[in-house]
């Protein structure tokens, strides 16, 4: 319900963008730039790179607006572009996005997080930033961008099981980092 009205609101703006209206383009940019920038930040973990990604993604989105069919919301369409651009950015940086895949997937003991640690957004966020690329990307896509493992597998070009195991390892690592930071403080 909310989504459909949202889409309808955007439809006019999107149409104006198609006609090359700069103000309409700015409206879409205002609406999505922050969220998209953070999506990119979580994947690339690099401010300058994320700006490049954002710029590239918006350029590409405005250029290929004709191929956007209103099947999905404009936001999710744009998000997919941003994610692809971000993933490409890291790929350029590192030859292998998921280097940990080859490590023996040891048993990841189910963390019995007995103590109800009061997670703080900022701590978790910083911990995510400290994750290695391979972990961070999968974890971010799963936790924050709301993709399931099948979708992540498709985006990263890995198998679904790899995505799952990668996520559980990333999650363990994340909790370790959080714990470490707590003890350090």
């Amino acid at each position, binding site marked *: 319900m909310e989504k459909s009205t949202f889409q309808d609101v955007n439809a006019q703006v999107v149409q104006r963008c198609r006609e090359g209206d700069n103000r309409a383009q700015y409206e879409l940019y205002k609406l999505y730039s922050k969220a998209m920038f953070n999506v990119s930040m979580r994947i690339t973990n690099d401010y300058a790179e994320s*700006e490049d990604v954002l*710029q590239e993604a*918006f350029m590409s989105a405005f250029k290929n607006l004709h191929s956007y069919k209103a099947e999905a919301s404009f936001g999710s369409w744009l998000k997919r572009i941003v994610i692809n651009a971000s993933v490409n950015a890291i790929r350029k940086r590192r030859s292998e996005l998921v280097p940990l895949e080859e490590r023996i997937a040891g048993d990841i003991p189910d963390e*019995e*997080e007995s103590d109800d640690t009061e997670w703080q957004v900022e701590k978790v966020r910083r911990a995510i930033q400290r994750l290695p690329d391979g972990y961070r990307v999968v974890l971010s896509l799963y*936790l*924050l961008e709301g993709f399931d493992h099948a979708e992540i597998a498709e985006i990263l070009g890995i198998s679904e099981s790899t995505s799952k195991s990668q996520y*559980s390892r990333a999650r363990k690592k994340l909790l370790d980092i959080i714990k470490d930071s707590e003890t350090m403080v």
Partner: protein
Amino acid sequence: MKDRLKEFVNENREDFDVFEPRPELWQEICSELNAQSAQEQATRKEAKMISISFGERLNFSTDLLFMRVAATIVLLLACGLTLWMVKQNSPVSNNTMAAASEQVQLNQIAPELAEVEVYYTNQIKQKREELSDYDVKVLGLDEARSIDRELARLDSSYTQLKNQLYTTPNTDQVMGAMIQNLQIRIEVLNRQLEVLQKIEQIQKQDNTEPEYNETTTI
């Protein structure tokens, strides 16, 4: 556990978006967008113009196409109709010529010809009858055969002319030739008659003259 982390993130989803791009970034994107579109327009100006004009004309051209198809159909129909009518007017007579009596067709093409034909054929018949009165062989005229040949030749050329009458548009010329043909025949027959009459006269004279001759000689 896993759920707890996910839940936590979901609950605080918004708070994770802490970064913001530099505000100047839009200016960069905007200027690059304009630069790109300007460049595109510069490099692809012709192509774009063509595509635009093509796009604009596409609707029109579909109409035009329809019009063209319609015009072609109309033209073809018109051509077909004229051809059909032409066929009806001339070659149909050709087709029925064999079936229908020639006389009817002749009356259509040259109504006066029938009358003329009847007149001359009667004359020719008459002349021939007159000729047959003379016993040509007895008279010792070898040329009679050549006259027959001449008459046969004239007759065949006459039928040829008559056939031409159905195909040639210049019916007057053909008609003139036909009448001339008939007249020549009569002329030939007249000459023959004259010759025969002269011979007869000479023979009559010969019959009487020997007496004179005899008398004179005697």
